[in-house]
């Protein structure tokens, strides 16, 4: 057991910190720090800066641009990115479909997609959820029927995050209607510019356009775009979701946001006084900070994650608690803002500072964190069943 980083790891961290804070454009990092939405161009620019330095996809196999890092080094990369306000490389590309392709796809698909996926030349969307298949994902109905050397796809996906920017979409489709739920599902890659694909925006409670519905009407997809084997899609999806859970505990970003909240709280009291003069407020922040510390230390304790297709059991703990604490910090911002919380449309003419203007939309937006990637109720089910062996 050891507290300190080894000299080698400390140097590694310093190098990353230096790169992230000097090479990623300031306007992008400022947008993240202000908790404002990034444009597509900002996402792409940031990821390409990282990719050019070999820092976009460290978790991938080395032959596809990954790094032979230790789990601790990968954890440090993840933390330093967030602490430096660098946008995470697009999760759909680097955390989801990339590792699936690298592990399960044909050599042809790998060569066609992986380099462009790492560089965000292709923007991937996720086509998993459907109106009647949320937490019960395996009940999905979008179907693909093989006709000659093409799959004909019909159905509807939903909650497709940033689908408005998507070039390609990785989907789960039913390819064997006779088989039991999970057994008849395949993973299919679909060009979003294909005829018959329609993307429709869904406005969310924060007023933003972050997610979409995607409709497939007799869309023709080349047979070779099926990932791995037919009817094995559920296995690939489980692999992907296990990775997603590890990635969705944004400890570094939560720490950084708490620090930002503390900073603004110092002058948010009446007449510019400090909210920390109120012992109830100070205790709330101290307790929240301690809970985040416990989460961060847990992340370090279980950095070894998805191996041989199985997610680390504690990834459910990280997802559950990570989302709760992420939300708790957005709640803190709302409370620091006080009556200014309503001024989401205030703009530059308003006397209300930007952090307060965005506080309510961000708070509302982050309610999603305990729902996506397997809702926290699904995580409790996994912990009870898989870890504790409590099977109803």
């Amino acid at each position: 057991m050891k507290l300190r980083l080894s000299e080698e790891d400390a140097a590694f961290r310093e190098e990353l910190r230096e790169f992230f804070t000097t090479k990623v454009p300031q306007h992008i990092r400022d947008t993240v720090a202000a908790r404002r939405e990034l444009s597509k161009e900002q996402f792409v620019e940031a990821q390409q800066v990282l990719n050019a330095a070999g820092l976009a996809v460290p978790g991938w196999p080395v032959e596809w641009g990954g790094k032979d890092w230790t789990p601790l080094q990968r954890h440090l990369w993840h933390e330093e990115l967030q602490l430096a306000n660098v946008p995470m490389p697009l999760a759909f590309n680097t955390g989801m479909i990339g590792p699936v392709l690298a592990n399960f796809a044909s050599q042809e698909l790998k060569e066609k997609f992986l380099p462009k996926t790492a560089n965000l030349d292709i923007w991937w969307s996720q086509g998993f959820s459907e109106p009647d298949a949320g937490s019960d994902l395996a009940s999905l109905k979008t179907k693909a029927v093989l006709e000659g050397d093409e799959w004909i796809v019909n159905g509807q996906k939903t909650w497709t995050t940033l689908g408005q920017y998507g070039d390609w979409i990785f989907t789960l489709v039913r390819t064997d209607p006779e088989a039991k739920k999970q057994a008849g599902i395949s993973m299919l890659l679909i060009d979003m510019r294909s005829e018959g694909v329609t993307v429709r925006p869904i406005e969310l409670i924060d007023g933003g356009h972050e997610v979409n519905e995607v409709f497939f009407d007799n869309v023709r997809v080349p047979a070779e775009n099926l990932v791995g084997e037919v009817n094995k899609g559920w296995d690939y999806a489980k692999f992907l979701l296990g990775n997603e859970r590890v990635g969705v505990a944004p400890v570094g970003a939560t720490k950084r946001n708490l620090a930002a909240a503390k900073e603004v709280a110092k002058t948010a009291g009446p007449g510019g006084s400090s909210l920390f003069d109120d012992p109830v407020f100070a205790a709330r922040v101290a307790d929240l900070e301690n809970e985040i510390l416990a989460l961060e230390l847990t992340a370090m304790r279980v950095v070894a994650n998805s191996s041989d297709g199985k997610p680390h059991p504690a990834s459910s703990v990280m997802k559950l608690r990570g989302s709760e604490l992420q939300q708790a910090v957005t709640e803190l911002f709302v409370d620091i803002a006080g009556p200014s919380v309503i001024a989401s449309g205030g703009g530059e003419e308003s006397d209300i500072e930007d952090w307060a203007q965005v506080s309510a939309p961000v708070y509302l937006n982050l309610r999603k964190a305990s729902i996506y990637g397997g809702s926290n109720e699904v995580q409790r089910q996994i912990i009870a069943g898989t870890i504790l062996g409590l099977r109803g």
Partner: protein
Amino acid sequence: MDFVYDSEQEALKGAVAGLLGKAYDSTETRREVAKSDPGWSESTWQQLAEMGALGLPFAEADGGFGAGPVEVAIVAEEIGHVIAPEPYVETVVLTGSLVQALGTDEQRAEILGGIADGSLIPAVAHTEVAGRYAERPTAVTASGSEDAWTLTGVKEPVITGERADLLIVTAALPTGGTGVFAVRPDASGLSRHGYRTADGGRAAKVTFADTPATPLGEAGTDASDAVALAVAKAQIAYCHEALGAMESAVKITVEYLKTRKQFGVPLMTFQALTFRAADLYVQLELTRSIVMWATLVLADSEDRDFQIEAARRAKLKVSKASRHIGQEAIQLHGGIGMTAEYSIGHYTGRLTVIDHLLGDGAFHLNELATSVADHAEYDPFGE
């Protein structure tokens, strides 16, 4: 940061678990031992001494084995696993740390050597009724100079105070500051009133009336810093003891949900119960992380303030988690959880007591809150 035990540490864990698992193989055994004085087993204590568990953190020159906080944590956790009533943290960690920090060569050899080989069981008399969790004693005062000192006042509760072969007492010095003294059990003006505690252990009210006392180390100098650090070390060791107890409580509760049937089905059929069990597991894992980290801070940092803060942070999280787990463990059992014949309630009892030794969650939260605005992100490496 590396949380993995090496092979020697694994071996120590296995040996202590084996010994204590045999000594406390059932709730009934533990109840029997706790019923008769001194409230724990002298023979189990001797076995721990023979194994070397009681001298782990002391220097070899003082009769110890030169191990560190990680080894101490391993033993404390195994104590917690079976809620063994032996006063490990009080004797080895709290007394040991004070004597280590302040004692003369002779005092260290006598007291630490005696603890290590099991021949001497001292108790620390620090807590005062009106003082709550205060680190500076006020109710017991020291007077004298050079080598002639006496103590007057009352300490309570003093854990194992009646059985103790020697009392290590904190007292207010005439010049201000805190002194630490050793008092022999047969010293004049000393009286001890022992009683049973809420968790089945023993404590005492100890009264000093012009009682002769020997200063630990140099007489009359303020030992506040040494007391604060010894308290922090004991707080962290208590956290490990609580962690072991919580781990067992969760395990016992999960097992009960699998086997107990109502309405013709096992309790685990009901999602309202399994979800709560999942939440207990989440809290246990988070608590384990912060408690192990606090021990790493003790082991690897030289910064006293960082160590004290780490102890506060661990104690705060343990306080919250142990209440949650202790309360839910009984509730998920139902009526059987209320009975003294069954194990789970004893775990909750012990967790409740540990929570209130050397500062509960609210106390430490209050301390942490005073400095929370002084830093931006909190750095667990202490850099």
